[in-house]
């Protein structure tokens, strides 16, 4: 494993020239069954005393062959499977898949469906960030935020449950529109949630933003430069915390995001603390988007005209969306039959996890936990 990262030598890695302790290099195995790895991630650490010299990730424990399954299902049948990749942001996965197939079929969802899609996806972004905040803070030692975020996340899951009966793997969208018409009182409940949630973000921030222990554990921990982020393909809040103002919702708008007014929060230092601030600001922006969308929800059909048996013309399409964790892309090849010839998922967590080594070098072992948390990976999506 010594040479695995020689290719990264052009990145500014902080590798100490002199050993910190005059001791032998220590190799330690962490995981796959470790509570702080957020699933089944195994990390092999090379240590000098408590300093990390390098690490290697061993993944694949949750590999279910989602891409292979896709080749053996029709376009419609594969739709629920994508929810099982990033299971804390299932709605985003579904949106990406449905939009890609819609591109192949050359149809567009009607305006009402687009609006509801934006509302549900942004609610999902909040739910995903809440789960991240609770578990990340728990890893670092703050137990309280976990109870706060799970309490508030419940309200979003209740909206999902009322809308489609499921809380996590929602299968909320269909190719060409929505699975269901919204229930009576949907708009009011979403608005109530926004009013309920706005002060809650302040509550989270009160607990952490100026908390001395939190700041000490996150400032200058797991720093990554914008240049390294781009070289390693890192996207999402991690990239933005390093100062790159890039969000697919703005850069290449999909759904109807171009109709909404919102900002892209960015950080400066690219450390764990900045990534925390960026995600907190993103939750506020999501509230803004939902507010606009629910205020101007148009009437009309929820499904475009799509054939019952879908047979897109032979061809290939790549389409990607800004999932809570970064760029989520689908590359689908059609051969003109009812089943996709090839479905490729470009998961943000998988590519972002590559940066773990760069971010952990020169840090302490305890910081590895903080960095895994701040990357916000979901192993279901890493392994697919």
């Amino acid at each position, binding site marked *: *494993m010594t*040479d*695995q*990262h*020689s*290719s*990264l030598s052009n*990145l500014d890695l902080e590798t100490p020239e002199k050993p910190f302790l005059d001791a032998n290099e220590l190799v330690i195995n962490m995981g796959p069954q470790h509570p702080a790895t957020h699933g089944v991630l195994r990390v092999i650490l090379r240590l000098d005393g408590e300093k990390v010299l390098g690490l290697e990730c061993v*993944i*694949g424990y949750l*590999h279910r*062959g989602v*891409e*292979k*399954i896709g*080749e*053996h299902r029709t376009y419609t049948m594969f739709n629920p499977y994508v929810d099982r990749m990033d299971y804390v942001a299932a709605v985003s996965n579904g949106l990406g898949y449905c939009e890609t197939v819609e*591109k*192949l079929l*050359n149809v567009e969802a009607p305006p009402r469906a687009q609006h509801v899609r934006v509302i549900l996806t942004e609610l999902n972004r909040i739910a995903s960030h809440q789960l991240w905040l609770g578990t990340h803070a728990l890893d670092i030692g703050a137990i309280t935020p976990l109870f706060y975020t799970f309490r508030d996340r419940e309200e979003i899951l209740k909206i999902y449950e009322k809308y489609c009966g499921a809380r996590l793997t929602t299968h909320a969208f269909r190719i060409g529109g929505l699975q269901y018409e919204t229930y009576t009182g949907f708009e009011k409940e979403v608005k109530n949630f926004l009013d309920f949630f706005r002060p809650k973000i302040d509550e989270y921030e009160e607990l952490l933003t100026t908390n001395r222990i939190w700041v000490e554990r996150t400032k200058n921990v797991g720093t990554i430069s914008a240049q390294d982020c*781009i*070289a*390693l*393909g*890192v996207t999402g809040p991690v990239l933005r915390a390093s100062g*790159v103002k*890039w969000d697919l919702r703005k*850069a*290449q708008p999909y759904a109807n995001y171009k109709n909404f007014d919102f900002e892209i929060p960015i950080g400066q230092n690219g450390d764990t603390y900045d990534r925390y601030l960026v995600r907190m600001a993103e939750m506020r922006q999501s509230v803004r988007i939902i507010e606009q969308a629910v205020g101007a929800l148009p009437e009309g059909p929820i499904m475009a005209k799509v054939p019952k048996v879908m047979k897109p013309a032979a*061809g*290939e*399409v*790549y389409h*990607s969306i800004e999932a809570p964790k970064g*760029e989520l*892309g689908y*590359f689908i*090849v059609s051969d003109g039959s009812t089943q996709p*010839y*090839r479905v*490729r998922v*470009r998961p943000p967590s*998988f*590519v972002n*996890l*590559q940066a773990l080594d760069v971010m952990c070098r020169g840090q302490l072992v305890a910081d590895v936990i903080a960095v895994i948390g701040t990357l916000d990976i979901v192993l279901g999506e890493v*392994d*697919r």
Partner: protein
Amino acid sequence: MVAKFRGTYGSGITPLTYAGQNYMAVDRSLIPEILQVLRNEERFDYCVDITAVHYPKREKQFDVVWVLYSFARNERIRVTTQIVDGESLPSAVPIWPAANWLEREVYDMFGIKFDGHPDMKRILLPEGWKGHPLRKDYGILQQDNEWVQINLGIESGQ
């Protein structure tokens, strides 16, 4: 851009369009140069994805696809090339470090090797597994029973 490439490289490049997305089919021999040029001159600095598609009935069985993005131009491009089974490709890791795991996954799933990759081994499946699951001749229920029996001590993983 593709027109400029066609001027330089001639018939080795075929511009294609589907559903409003442009991509180009590139001759295998031009791949090392084209990837370099795209990174250094055309400023495609972000390697989004590398993947492959298996066409068992074709003589050149595999399509390998690079999805690239340029922050400066806000533009995406796809490069595809066809290779025969057993042929290797130059690794893109020196150009984009992000290619590291992506190429390992292509090797794991299709058995396509990348020359010059720092650590060409399986990534999702365990070391020692036989077969490459995303090839079309690999059945959906198929698995390496021998591996399962030796390493997990059970008759079958299903």
